[in-house]
């Protein structure tokens, strides 16, 4: 009995009228946890009942505490017939299980019904008494903290960053066909909500266990997703980065945590594989070992089965293989190797079948200073799978029993279902890892995974940014001294991360290298693409802007395999074009780097849609981008030429205008300074459109844009014309507005405190006749552009402001429907300070970084906290087998899992294709800096205390919501726990509720309300890193029905305005612990 849960039902208010005769309600409450139920008395004839119940006590396992939600049902008592349900409240009690988070949940919760929406509120108090349980075989992981934030949370210091954790659980979806059903819609919706709540609880607990195994105490960048696979079931999966975090106010834990890895570190050489040739991790490794290879993983393979452990794809593609040490220096190779070995060692685990350790992935997008050394570029992988119903007898007849699904968990039961999904993801991750290797990187940062499902076809996608991490954080052996020295001199602040991690003579793709414009010492690529946030100390010129590539492709309707094949065939072209568009638009903006790149490919019945969003910036370290040249196909035609030159002029004008708009004025650098000792393989890079067949016609044109390389657009058909036009149709935001999809806007650093988070959803119906790719593209483009225009208009009162973290999600709910969902936050800034030069900013941040560094961010990666044998990377080719053999799964099952990935071959072949085709693109590479500012994008010193007046007089505390990890003008003082909520809303009176717009508008408003209420009940006043992960909307207007599923998550926090900080800090603890039964009042 390791936990006692106590619940008290205080009162209700604004209940609906349940008895028409009296216009009143006889309400009572059922409190259920697990299989135990308590009831309050019936409070007769009132819409504002005062139950003031006793404390209901549940004695439960901590495992249950983690998995189960507390379920509160409000009912109307009826003497003669069945009691009518008014609505429910699910309370996740997880936040009460961490020692330092919330101590009590107390406040008004909206009573929610899946058919009627919010129906009044109920005041509840929940407490947990947790007994310490030292059982090492326990199944619970109470106390592991979860954060959605993709950086080290503000009031913590990372002692160790352990690495990637993932898990998934699968179950039958209680309602895969919402229209045909036997039970009432309410019952099936509730079953579904409860099940998903249980599954996410379980998932979190299991991830927690893995973290404990790794000796971590927290998961950062936790991302949990649902795949509604329809008939084949429901998958809940999560990824995150395991860390050991230390609360900043308690410095005690720091030393021991730091020492232990180093101690163990020393033992490693003895434990390790004795092969001295390939072994590179030990301090004894000579600096100039020419035998280093890119794939030294062999040395660690002794634990794995006999299978080949060289997992890199290098032999196949010829990329990045061979010795790296020839010219770029042994230093780099060593760096790489040490990083890798460190990462691999982390793979060491007492459980042989713990496959998760093999991926050196980090879901973080912002890093402590010095963590990132170099950034290689974006790596991504996609795979098309066929969903298949799993015939599992365990499913039969167990619905309604909320616990039985646990039998299906892959750890405890022999179901092959999750195994399949697991294998699919393992495969994708493997692909990502090998791509990263090809870029000379051993880690992937800013990593994320997503799916798009249509009928039985599923596209799995993963992407991240290949990076080299600083070995200084990996070990503190004898090498460190000299390494560090070199690091310091080689990696000047602000440009180090731009320097290429790969060997310039063995470039994985053709790229145009120059010496860094900042330090002039190292090579940099001409363009850099990344999925991470802009490092704080990066030297940026001007401001950034949101850049989107949008693309539709028609596809024939098909079934099963044929469908999957068709999709697989289309994908590479889509990726290629998306990248082309991105590149063109980037050049049009006069910028040279993309951050926060997110490419989403969605599949529908008869089309595929691609939407890429990123934030373009001009990195001072990278060369000035060349212009865009237009080439005509028939140069002899006079009028045509005229037209072409007209277009060319327009493009040049646009570039000039954009440079002005975004204040891009790079200092002129004379030729001599730059020098050009690099043999340039090509003076200009030419990008030919994929459709164009003739490349020779353009060769004679003088395309060079002065000395810079130019981008060539060949106008060879109307398609191309359209594309050029569409390039020019993107209108810049109205003056006073900026937008980006990263946490902060590069070039703006003086935020004021007004923020407005919003969600906007649009669905358009395409006219079904004569759909062509062009028409589709235009429609899609217009949809997105109009949506943005609407946002600018609506938020005009906030000018000057910036839309940050603009997150577009596109889906194809039906044949001719396109749904776009946008969540973002508008933040005001002070115009007068906006002109502050980037230089002073950089200086400031540097200053800050140096002071912060010491206390905040000394965290070695955990290379060696387990002294156990390390686990090798399984080889790419055989990863399936090795994986399954590792996990001890019988051969028979292995066979089935291979069957499920019947498209694996095709996938890998198209990935190859993409690789070849998109090489020009991938050159977008990355960088890391030594002195990155702390993750907060905003130097606190820059905040202006223009806080809005406190909302006196209001009975409901204000809860801010933001997709960012910080709140401008305020300091986060406490993290109260993760908010992860799933809601279903359904209606059978769609017209009466105002049609689809009215229905969804109300539902989203209700979701916000429920999130706020939960945060307020935890004693918080804001949600940071808020994300709406899913918004699935289905309608059937003929039946007057609609249904919507929404999944949101975020971190509940307490923040204090900086202006009030001194005053409040002393009162803070008291304020937090006080449950305000009167309505969760919170200081703002």
């Amino acid at each position, binding site marked *: 009995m390791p936990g006692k849960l106590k619940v008290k039902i205080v009162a209700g208010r604004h209940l609906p009228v349940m008895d028409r005769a009296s216009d009143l309600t006889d309400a009572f409450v059922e409190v259920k946890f697990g299989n135990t139920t308590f009831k309050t008395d019936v409070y007769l004839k009132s819409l504002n009942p005062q139950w003031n119940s006793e404390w209901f006590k549940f004695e439960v396992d901590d495992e249950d505490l983690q998995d189960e939600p507390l379920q509160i049902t409000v009912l109307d008592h009826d003497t003669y017939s069945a009691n009518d349900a008014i609505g429910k409240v699910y309370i996740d009690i997880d936040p009460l299980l961490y020692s330092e988070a919330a101590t009590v949940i107390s406040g008004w919760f909206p009573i929610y019904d899946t058919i009627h929406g919010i129906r009044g509120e109920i005041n509840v108090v929940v407490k947990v008494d947790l007994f310490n349980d030292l059982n090492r075989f326990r199944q619970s992981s109470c106390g592991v903290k979860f954060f959605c934030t993709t950086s080290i949370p503000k009031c913590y210091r990372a002692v160790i960053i352990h690495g990637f954790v993932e898990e998934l659980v699968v179950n039958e979806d209680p309602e895969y066909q919402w229209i045909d059903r036997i039970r009432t819609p309410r019952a099936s919706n509730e079953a579904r909500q409860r099940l998903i709540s249980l599954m996410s609880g379980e998932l979190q607990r299991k991830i927690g266990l893995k973290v404990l195994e790794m000796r971590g105490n927290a998961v950062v960048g936790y991302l949990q997703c649902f795949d509604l696979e329809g008939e084949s079931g429901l998958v809940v999966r999560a990824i995150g980065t395991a860390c050991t975090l230390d609360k900043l106010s308690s410095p005690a834990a720091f030393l021991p945590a730091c020492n232990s890895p180093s101690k163990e570190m020393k033992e490693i050489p003895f434990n390790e594989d004795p092969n001295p040739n390939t072994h590179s991790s030990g301090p004894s490794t000579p600096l100039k070992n020419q035998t280093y290879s890119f794939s030294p993983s062999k040395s660690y393979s002794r634990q794995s089965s006999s299978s080949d452990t060289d997992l890199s794809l290098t032999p196949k593609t010829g990329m990045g293989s061979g010795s790296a040490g020839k010219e770029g220096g042994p230093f780099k190779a060593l760096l790489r190797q040490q990083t890798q070995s460190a990462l691999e060692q982390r793979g060491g685990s007492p459980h042989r079948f713990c496959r998760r350790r093999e991926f050196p992935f980090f879901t973080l997008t912002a890093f402590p200073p010095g963590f990132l050394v170099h950034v290689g570029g974006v790596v991504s992988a996609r795979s098309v799978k066929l969903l298949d119903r799993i015939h599992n007898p365990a499913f039969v007849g167990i619905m309604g029993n909320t616990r039985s699904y646990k039998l299906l968990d892959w750890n405890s039961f022999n179901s092959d279902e999750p195994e399949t999904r697991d294998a699919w993801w393992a495969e994708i991750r493997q692909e990502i890892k090998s791509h990263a290797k090809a870029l000379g990187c051993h880690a992937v940062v800013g990593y994320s995974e997503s799916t798009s499902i249509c009928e039985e076809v599923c596209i799995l996608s993963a992407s991240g940014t290949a990076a080299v991490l600083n070995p200084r954080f990996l070990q503190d052996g004898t090498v460190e001294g000299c390494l560090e020295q070199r690091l310091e001199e080689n990696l000047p602040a602000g440009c180090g991360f731009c320097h290429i991690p790969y060997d310039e003579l063995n470039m994985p793709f053709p790229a145009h290298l120059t010496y860094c414009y900042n330090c002039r010492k190292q090579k940099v690529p001409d363009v850099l693409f990344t999925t991470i946030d802009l490092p704080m100390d990066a030297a940026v010129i001007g401001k950034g802007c949101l850049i989107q590539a949008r693309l539709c492709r028609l596809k024939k309707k098909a079934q099963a395999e044929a469908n999957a094949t068709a999709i697989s065939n289309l994908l590479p072209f889509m990726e290629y074009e998306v990248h082309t568009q991105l590149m063109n638009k980037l050049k049009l903006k006069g910028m040279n780097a993309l951050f926060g790149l997110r490419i989403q490919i969605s599949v529908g019945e008869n089309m595929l849609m691609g939407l890429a969003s990123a934030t373009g910036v001009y990195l001072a370290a990278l060369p000035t981008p060349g212009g865009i040249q237009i080439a005509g196909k028939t140069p002899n035609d006079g009028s045509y030429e005229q037209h072409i030159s007209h277009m060319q002029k327009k493009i040049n004008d646009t570039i000039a205008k954009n440079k002005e708009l975004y204040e891009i004025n790079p200092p002129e650098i004379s030729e001599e300074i730059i020098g050009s000792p690099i043999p340039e393989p090509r003076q200009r890079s030419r990008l030919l459109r994929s459709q164009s067949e003739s490349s020779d016609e353009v060769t004679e044109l003088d395309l060079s844009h002065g000395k810079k390389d130019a981008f060539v657009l060949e106008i060879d058909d109307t398609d191309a014309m359209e594309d050029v036009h569409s390039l020019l149709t993107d209108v810049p935001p109205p003056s006073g507005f900026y937008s980006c999809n990263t946490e902060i806007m590069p070039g703006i650093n003086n935020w004021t405190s007004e923020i407005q988070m919003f969600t906007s959803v649009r669905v358009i119906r395409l006219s079904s006749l004569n759909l062509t790719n062009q028409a589709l593209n235009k429609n899609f483009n217009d949809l997105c552009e109009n949506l943005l225009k609407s946002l600018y208009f609506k938020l005009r009162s906030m000018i000057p402001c910036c839309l940050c973290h603009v997150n577009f999600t596109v889906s194809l709910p039906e044949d001719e429907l396109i749904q776009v969902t946008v969540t973002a936050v508008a933040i005001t800034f002070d115009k007068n300070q906006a002109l502050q030069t980037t230089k002073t900013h950089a200086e400031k941040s540097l200053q800050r970084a140096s002071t912060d560094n010491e206390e905040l961010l000394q965290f070695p990666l955990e290379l060696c906290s387990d002294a156990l044998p390390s686990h090798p990377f399984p080889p790419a080719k055989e990863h399936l087998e090795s994986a399954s053999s590792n996990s001890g799964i019988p051969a028979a099952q292995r066979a089935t899992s291979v069957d499920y990935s019947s498209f694996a071959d095709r996938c890998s072949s198209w990935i190859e294709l993409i690789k070849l085709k998109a090489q020009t693109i991938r050159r977008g590479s990355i960088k890391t800096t030594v002195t990155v500012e702390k993750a907060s994008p905003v130097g606190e010193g820059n905040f202006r205390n223009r806080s809005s007046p406190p909302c006196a007089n209001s009975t*409901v505390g204000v809860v801010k919501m933001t997709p960012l990890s910080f709140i401008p003008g305020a300091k986060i003082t406490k993290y109260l726990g993760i908010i992860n909520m799933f809601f279903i809303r359904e209606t059978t009176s769609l017209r009466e509720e105002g049609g689809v717009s009215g229905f969804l508008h109300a539902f989203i408003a209700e979701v916000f309300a429920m999130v706020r209420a939960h945060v307020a009940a935890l004693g918080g006043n804001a949600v940071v890193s808020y994300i709406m992960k899913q918004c699935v909307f289905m309608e059937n207007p003929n039946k007057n029905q609609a249904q919507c599923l929404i999944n949101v998550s975020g971190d509940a926090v307490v923040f204090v305005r900086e202006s009030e900080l001194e005053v409040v800090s002393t009162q803070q603890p008291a304020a937090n612990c006080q449950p305000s039964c009167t309505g969760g009042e919170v200081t703002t």
Partner: protein
Amino acid sequence: MTSELDIFVGNTTLIDEDVYRLWLDGYSGLWGTVCGCRFGGAVVLDGRAGRARMSDAVALRVRSGILEQTGATAAVLQSDTMDHYRTFQMLERLLHAPPKLLHQLIFQIPPSRQALLIERYYAFDEAFVREVLGKKLSKGTKKDLDDISTKTGITLKSCRRQFDNFKRVFKVVEEMRGSLVDNIQQHFLLSDRLARDYAAIVFFANNRFETGKKKLQYLSFGDFAFCAELMIQNWTLGAVGEAPTDPDPQADDMDMDLDKEFLQDLKELKVLVADKDLLDLHKSLVCTALRGKLGVFSEMEANFKNLSRGLVNVAAKLTHNKDVRDLFVDLVEKFVEPCRSDHWPLNDVRLFLNQYSASVHSLDGFRHQALWDRYMGTLRGCLLRLCHD
């Protein structure tokens, strides 16, 4: 390409004051007109119709020049208007019981905005209120709203809202004890000014004072509200200081109904005109005091008995409900019109009324001084307010 669904939801609910005004004024967004069709017809068709047609509200916004100021398109404006209209529609339910708006969790609205929403929602048009002031707030009256709408040029929707507001406030405070204004303020969170206006409306509706007669048309709502306030302060049960300490369970509502006993007692004043000596004495007292001070002295002297008879008879008649209703008609007929026909300046009216009331104290044979003061004190204020063109 047609838009099926288009919504924007902010964590802080966006309120555009201009759009709110349009909504309150009853101009249709897409919602009112085209969605009317939506309810009957296919969704696709209606989507198209919506795009093609510009709703009244959007057209008005376009006319305000917002497109030029912001560089937006009509489609953007339409979408924005619809978002706001939906929000207002959802808020409307809460606005019916404003304290709910404060406690609800669905919309996060800063307090200043909440106050604005409430205040504007309960604001009413002068032209409209004059039409229904003193009428029974019943279904019958509601049916006449069509005519009122045509007559006043206020949209029917807006008329309905205003009428429903009156009725709602009436229903809530009807049965309540205590100060009418306080009750209204407490239950509807209105500003002091607006709460007073509502008190007047409720008071008039409850006592069914006739205000619609042609000869009363020159009076504004403000005039009536002023009178109502005086009457509430002096002539109702609540006005008598001892009432709260002596709660009579059978007692009528404190502030809404006139003090029946008081009205009954007013009969006693008849002696002032019935007793010839008393009337003459009263007249001579007033005339002596005002001689030389009044521009219209001779007219006053000639008319004194008529005027006095008029005022006293009005008092004596108030026992009958019908006559209570005609109070303002009578006052205008018996006092205001004679004064007006003789062109009394307002100052002379004031001097006369003051002296007229005060002189009664010197009438030895008259025993109902307190009653007289309670009656005349209020009436004097009302009459002064009513005397204008």
